[in-house]
Structures are given as C-alpha cells and as structure tokens.
C-alpha cells in the first residue's frame, strides 16, 4: 500500500491508484477534461498537470501511478501556470457561446476559465477557426467548435457500446470529431455521450433549450425502466421533470444510463394520468372522492373474506408490496404478482450493457416478500370458476393479458390501482389513482438483490396516492391499521418481518444501496437468465 502526500495531506492508497484518484479520495479536485473514472485513461488534454517533488517536469495526474513517498502539489504556482496555459490553448478556437450553450453551468471549460479568470481571449472571434455547428446526430447535437478533443466520446463508443461511431477527422487546429457521413447515433446509450462530454460539443436533443441547468432541482433516485435499477438523478423544475441523468454507482450502472430508461421520465408527465377515483355506477357520474371509493372497496372486501384475490405489481416499491401483502393476509384471500407486461412488444429486449428484458424494477422485491406462491394461473382459474368475489389489482398489467380478460369479466368486483388512463380500465369497477416512481419515497430491489432508495421528486397528480397508502387506508377501514404512516416506517416493519431485510433501514441503504445476503431466486420464465 503506497503512501503519498498530496497538498500536505498524507494518504495511503491501493497499489495502482493514480494521482488523480488519490487526490479525489482526499477531496482534492485536479482540473481535467479527458479523464473519466469509468473510461480508459487517455491523457491527451494535459489539464491535470501536477508538480511532483523530485520529478523534473510536471506530470499528468490521471496517468501517474502513486509511488511510495510521492509528494504531490496540485495547486503550486508551476502547476497553476500550466493549467492556465493549457486552458488558453483550449480556448484559442472556442466560440465562447455560453449564452446559447446548454452545457453552461455544468461545463468543465466554463468552470475552469472562470476559476482562472481567463475572460479575455488573445484571438479575435473573427480570427478563430470555424468548424461545423448544429450537426443533428439524431438524439445528439454536435457542435464541433466547442469540442476540446478529449476523446471521451470515442472511448465511450469503443469501450462501452463497442459501436465506434465517432472518429477524429482533419489535422492540427482543424481537427474535429465526426461520425461517418454524419450518420445519426442509433444505439441505446446515446444519451451518455452528452453526459461524458465535458463541454457543450455533444448535447442531448431531448434537453435542448428546455431550461438552464441552474434552475433544476435534483433528487437522487433509481431508474424504474427495468430490473437493473440504474442509479439516476431526477432533475425537475417547478414540479415538472426535465431530464433523467445517471448517477455513478460502480456496482450497478457505473456512470451510464440507457436511452429507454432516460426517456422513461416522460411517462410521469403524460396528460393521460389518472388523477381521481372512479366507481362504476356511482350516483354522481363515475367520479367520486378517494374516501368514498375506498369505503366501497372496504365494504366489498369485508363481505368477500377468503373469496378475495390480490394481484401485486412488480412496478410497485417494496413498501407498496409489503402493505399489499399485509392487506391480503388480513382478508385471508390469495395473493400473487404478475411479471412482465404482455402488451409491451419489446423491440429491444435486452443488451449486454445495462438493459434487461424484465422491464419491472422490483420483480426481485416481490419474490423476496414471498409472493409468487399462490400462482397467477390459479387465481385466473378461480376467477373463471366464479370463486373470486373481489379482485384487487395493484397495477393494470393483468387486465392487458388476453387470457385473463375473460376470467376477470366474471369477477363481480374488480379494483385496480392505475397510473394512466387506458381502455382496459373499463373492466374495473373501481379505479384508484396511484403514483409513479418519481412521486414516491420507497425502495426497489434490483436483479442483483440490491435494495436501493427511490425518492419523491415531483408531486403526484390530483388525488393520486402511493400504493402503500391505499393499502394502509383499506386496512384501517378493515379495523387493522398498519404500523406505519410513512414509507420509512413501513420499510422498518418490512425489515422486521422479512429475514433477508433484517436490520435494514433507509439510512443503512444510503445512496448506493445494499446487497442482500443469499442468492437471488430465479424469476419466472419471462425474466432473463443473465444480463
């Protein structure tokens, strides 16, 4: 374990650690462009030069391995002068169009030149080398003038997706990045190109001109697009999600997020959200207050007793599932959960990077809670035979499957918790509005059995409530209220009742999640075997 001193602070690091990583561990940031923790080292930007004692010249921090007794100065006069010089070279042909650049506010170049006070350029704007601007590459917009030629995008394409779309063309100060014949980026990880680009050369088409980044408020959460559970950050402004960006978690998604997941925030804002409760045949049209709807459901549940069936949804959080399970146990009915969404004709099923064919974020959580025992088929058969008097669905997935619709039609009272309006909700007698992943606190358990926190970023539409709250309201009406009145408390109850989750709470889960002991149970046949 070599020991080194960085800016007077001593640190012991693992062998093979580079100076920039050791500095980051100490909280010292070395300015850089081309270095990225999840990409191979290139060392071309020359921005991270640091002074190392007994070495005659400045060294790049990103590609210098820490050796025993090394003494590094990142902010010495010599190093800062080198940063300034490098920066000035990078800015020679930069168009300085920060007012119209979406990267402004999170741009390495901008941060650095503001830090060094390089406000005046020695090159007049007219004398600068002009390159191509506003090149539409499908989901990505290329502006070659802003590029600092750090090759992060090239390395991302080469090492993460293996598509090699980008290449440097021309020479000298006319060098720029380009795709062959300006072909658009077509793989499922294009959004990451905008994230890895340290400047405004590659920008997301989706986020283009939407808002300036300093207006955004961020919430750490998890992408609910599939069972990988990529760590993500929800950026919202005035209660409207503007974008979803990856959050680094080396164990799950590194620094990446697929485009399907990235665009999943759009479902949250769709105008077709269910915002109020509906009861078929209610005197005041179909729309009723949430309380009235819950009252009618509770009455039917009491009547039905063991003739009630419960179908959980793997879209729900662990808290939702636990509350739902408690509800099912209280009424004595049968319980299972539905994997997969039969109506999704998935074009891209899964790839070798992040995306998994199981597009439900919490299948593992449902399995961990002991669901999937009574059998979906058994419940559907019971519906068919008329044995089921009340069917409570935690999501509308079952209504969409062709083989179940006929059986469900025979059930006299169907309750569904729904997020979006859709034609199959016609089959339900009571529709309860519920929240989506960006609107609740809770936890998901991903395919690795990693329990991860999701957090409420935006308000839910209308009367929509979290699923655990709906289950809790019903339990209260049945005379057996839940122990908790918040997601945190329900998770504590869950942890106390479930062996694998013992001792866990929201603080223990933290920002990057906690892996449960034991091997993951194999999901049902529709889930993939491996990533």
């Amino acid at each position, binding site marked *: 374990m070599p020991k080194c001193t960085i800016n007077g602070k001593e640190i012991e690091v693992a062998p093979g650690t580079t100076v920039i990583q050791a500095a980051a561990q100490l909280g010292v940031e070395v300015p850089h462009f081309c270095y990225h923790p999840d990409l191979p080292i290139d060392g071309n930007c020359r921005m991270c030069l640091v002074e190392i004692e007994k070495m005659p010249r400045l060294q790049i921090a990103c590609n210098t391995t820490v050796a025993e007794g090394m003494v590094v100065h990142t902010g010495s006069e010599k190093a800062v002068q080198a940063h300034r010089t490098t920066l000035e070279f990078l800015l020679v042909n930069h168009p300085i169009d920060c007012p119209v650049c979406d990267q*402004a506010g999170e741009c390495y170049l901008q941060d650095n030149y503001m830090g060094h006070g390089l*406000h005046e350029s*020695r090159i007049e704007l007219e004398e600068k080398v002009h390159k191509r601007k506003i090149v539409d590459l499908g989901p990505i917009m290329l502006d070659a003038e802003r590029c600092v030629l750090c090759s992060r995008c090239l390395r991302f394409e080469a090492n993460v997706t293996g598509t090699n779309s980008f290449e440097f063309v021309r020479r000298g100060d006319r060098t720029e990045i380009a795709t062959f014949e300006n072909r658009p980026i077509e793989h499922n990880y294009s959004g990451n190109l905008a994230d890895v680009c340290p400047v405004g050369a590659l920008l997301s088409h989706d986020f283009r001109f939407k808002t300036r980044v300093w207006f955004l408020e961020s919430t750490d959460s998890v992408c609910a697009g599939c069972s990988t559970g990529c760590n993500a950050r929800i950026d919202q402004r005035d209660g409207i999600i503007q974008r979803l960006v990856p959050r680094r978690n080396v164990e799950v998604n590194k620094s990446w997020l697929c485009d399907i997941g990235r665009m999943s925030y759009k479902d949250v804002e769709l105008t077709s959200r269910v915002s109020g409760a509906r009861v078929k045949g209610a005197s005041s049209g179909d729309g009723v207050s949430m309380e009235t709807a819950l009252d009618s459901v509770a009455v039917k549940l009491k009547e039905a007793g063991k003739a009630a069936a419960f179908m959980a949804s793997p879209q729900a959080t662990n808290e939702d599932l636990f509350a739902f399970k408690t509800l099912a146990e209280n009424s004595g009915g049968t319980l299972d959960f539905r994997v997969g969404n039969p109506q999704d004709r998935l074009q891209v099923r899964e790839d070798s990077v992040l995306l998994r064919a199981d597009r439900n974020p919490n299948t593992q959580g449902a399995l961990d809670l002991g669901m999937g025992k009574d059998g979906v088929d058994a419940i559907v058969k019971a519906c068919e035979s008329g044995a089921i008097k009340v069917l409570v669905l935690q999501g509308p997935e079952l209504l969409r499957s062709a083989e179940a619709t006929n059986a469900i039609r025979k059930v006299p009272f169907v309750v569904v918790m729904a997020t979006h309006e859709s034609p199959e909700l016609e089959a339900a007698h009571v529709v309860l509005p519920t929240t989506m992943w960006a609107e609740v606190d809770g936890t998901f358990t991903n395919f690795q059995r990693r329990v991860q926190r999701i957090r409420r970023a935006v308000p839910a539409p209308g009367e929509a409530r979290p699923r655990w709250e709906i289950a809790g309201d019903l339990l209260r009406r049945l005379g057996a209220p839940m122990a908790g009145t918040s997601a945190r408390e329900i998770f504590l109850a869950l942890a106390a009742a479930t062996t694998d989750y013992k001792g866990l709470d929201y603080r223990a889960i933290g920002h990057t999640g906690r892996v449960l002991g034991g091997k993951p149970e194999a999901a049902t046949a529709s889930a993939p075997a491996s990533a």
Partner: protein
Amino acid sequence: MAGKVVTVDRNTKPGIAPILLGHWITLKNLLSTLFGRGLATVSFPEQKRKTSGRYRGIHILTQRDDGSPKCVACYMCATVCPAECIHIEAGERPEATIEKYPTRFEIDLLRCVYCGFCVDACPEEAILMSRENDLVGTSREELIIGRDQLMDRGKLAEYGQGYHPDAHDVRRPVRIAALERLKSEHGIVPGPPPRRD
C-alpha cells in the same frame, strides 16, 4: 451619542412677527408658481415629467437589422431577476447565426420592481429600459407583456430610451471588484500576459 436637550418655554408669546413671516413664505411661493418657474407639479398626463437618461421604465427588447430579437434566450435576466417576473421559452432557429432565440418572452410588469438588473445581466444588450412610466391597464393579464410588444412599443419615441449599459457601465465597478478579489485571494491576475514582441 447623547442627544442635546433643548428646553422650550411654551409660555412666551410669539408676537405677530412669525405670523407675518409665515404669510410671506406662502405669498412668495404663490407668486413664484404663478409667474416664475418654481412649479412643483405637472399637469399629467398632458404634460410629462422630465426623467434622466438612466430612468428605469418599462423594458425594451432590441432588434437586429432584420427585425428579429437580439435576445438569444440565455435566461440571464430571468436568473438575476429578484422579482421572478421574466418568463422565457427558447426555440431553435437553424437558419440564423445564433440558433437559439426566445419563442416567448414575457415580463409581468406588475411583479417587476424596475431594478434594472436584467439590463446589467444581459450579455447581448438585448434588453434595455425606456423612460416610459405611465403603466395603465384594466386587468392583470394585460400587464404581462409579451415578446412582440416588448420589441415594438409605440410610445418609445415619445419617452425615449432609459437605463442601458453603454451610457453608464454599472458592471465595471462589479467587474473591477471581482478582479481585485481574484488577485488578493487567489493571486490570479486575469487576462492574457502582455505580449513580448
């Protein structure tokens, strides 16, 4: 600091002199307003009060030669605005040199505090202030004025331009202070070093 104690004897009779003095002052003002130039009031709205060239009245959005807004929708004004009265939506204009422009630019004149920060913040000199100050409307909606009204305002010629950056470079002292702080705290002297020819 201790105050000075003044003792007033209220039992003394003032006599006629102060009364006459008071009358004289009133008469003097009457004569000066009737015949002289000391008139303090103006017959608004027929007559307008004179304002200085730095008067901060209703905003102007400036235009390019082709009539398009100079504004590039950088949101600097909306960011700095303490009243949060500026609402911008940006759009794309691929044919122009600068691809970003405001599709909507609204100022709620009732929320605006006329501080002029938007003028200071603008990097394009796209927003200026006029000397127009008679703001009248019959509803709140009417006083939320949009991009085209801000660009083309009939009364502008009548009132003239108000606060704008080149007449009085308010940013200069701020910039100088920032540079001095950089030098004293970080030892950085900004700007390119002098050329050695």
